[in-house]
């Protein structure tokens, strides 16, 4: 299988301080890769760099073997990368439906897989709130909305930054089921998480990031039985 998204030797700085050190990552088509790490390990920065919001100072980002390093965020999105930020960032004074419509664009193949109707099938909760201001939704509903809004852009790869963060366990279960649904739809997923159990439930392989470096790569099965890694890099 070919890599959908590949990151090579990526360094990212905020001002003078280096946050990421030579990040290498590859996400195969159709895979769900979890990027695990503690708070401040560099997960969000990795995603921001891929999405073009915090452009890397060194290294390269490839989408379907095309070099997209340094592209403006909107051009990266049009290459098929959908980024769902950690802090959700719904448009609070727009309705749920308008939030979704703003995200609408055809996929890289020119086709529209995710229509408003399909979104409402997969996210029935949003259907019943389509006219409500997004700022009035609960945290879990806003999380659903940001994922749905990004899907409206028919991405080939979706970057989900800590979708379970700060949500009640029952909502986290719903999000996990949703990710499983997306996987079945053929969406390639890169998922940032602190919650290892959440990752075990949804991911196919895992990379662990610590202090801005990738320190472990393997399958979910291997990670389950590697207590040493879990103790050293994850809050288990």
């Amino acid at each position: 299988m070919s890599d959908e998204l590949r990151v090579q030797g990526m360094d990212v700085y905020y001002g003078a301080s280096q946050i990421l050190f030579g990040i290498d990552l590859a996400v195969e088509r159709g895979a769900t890769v979890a990027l695990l790490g503690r708070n401040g390990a560099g997960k969000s920065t990795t995603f921001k760099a891929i999405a073009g919001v915090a452009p890397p100072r060194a290294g390269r980002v490839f989408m379907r073997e095309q070099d997209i390093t340094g592209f403006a965020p909107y051009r990266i999105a049009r290459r098929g990368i959908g980024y769902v930020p950690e802090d959700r960032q719904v448009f609070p004074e727009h309705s749920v439906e308008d939030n979704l419509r703003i995200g609408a664009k055809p996929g890289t193949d020119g086709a529209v897989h995710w229509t408003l109707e399909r979104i409402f099938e997969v996210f029935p909760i949003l259907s019943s709130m389509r006219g409500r201001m997004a700022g009035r939704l609960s945290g879990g509903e806003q999380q659903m909305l940001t994922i749905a809004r990004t899907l409206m852009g028919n991405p080939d790869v979706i970057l989900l930054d800590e979708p379970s963060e700060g949500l009640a366990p029952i909502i986290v279960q719903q999000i996990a089921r949703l990710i499983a649904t997306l996987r079945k739809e053929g969406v390639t997923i890169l998922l940032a998480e602190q919650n290892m159990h959440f990752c075990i439930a949804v991911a196919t392989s895992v990379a662990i990031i610590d202090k801005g470096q990738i320190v472990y790569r393997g399958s979910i099965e291997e990670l389950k039985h590697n207590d040493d890694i879990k103790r050293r890099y994850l809050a288990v």
Partner: protein
Amino acid sequence: MNFDALIDCFSASACVVTQISSGLIIGMLIFMVASGVTLIFGVLGVVNFAHGALYMLGAYFALTAYWVTDSFTVAVLAGAIGTGLFGVVFERLFISRVYGADVLSQLLVCYAFVLILDDAVKAIWGGDFLSMGMPEAFALPPLMIAGGFVPPFYAFLTAFAVASAIALAALLGLTRFGKIVRAAAVNRQMVGVLGINTSLVYALIFGLGAALAGAAGALAAPVRSATPGMGFDILIESFIVTVIGGMGSIAGAFVGAILIGMIRAFGTVGFPLATEGVTFAMMAVVLLVKPAGLFGKAGR
């Protein structure tokens, strides 16, 4: 002060109609400039001190087009489109570099262009007062409304500005472009991440604001004379209107502009020396009672 004259005017419908019609055209011209100021501030976060110069450009573009083609329609189109295109280029080359910068840098860039454009106009069209005269299409007998005379051009100008206001409100409120614009005003980065070229959106919004100012300049050409520096007064009035109506609010700009127009018109009857003072006093009162402006949202 001559309050007797003001009371006399209010007791005669002819005087009221005449003053309201001249107040309306003053207000409508201010609205068309102020709507661009408030739109550009609300979305781009830039206080465009050069907006009055764009109004001036519109007037001169319209004059030239009118002299060449003898058509007022072409003149208005030239004023609006010419100034709109100038605005897009100006935004891409200069304004786009001061987004998020402190207001002093923005002021400096804009003020530099006020001086440059005033001098450019002087170099191209000369420093004299230029007048278009009333286009033939409007050289008709005045309309009689409740005993007062209203020039047909005043009615046209008012209708044009009201139509612009409705079109602008519909564009921003109902279309996907308008929804994107309002979303970008709140969170530009997220809009970009969703695959929307926000630089293009910003350039179009600036161009739209410039086109409105240019159209106002063209509409002013038959009733006012064009001169370098003509944009200054209307810029100040637009800022007052923007403050009264609420930064970023088109409806606020509309109401505020009509208020100022009426103060100007009835002020010439009752307190000709104090109209500016009354205008500023009204702004001060609004700021005291509603600091965010009549239609403004608190905290913005």
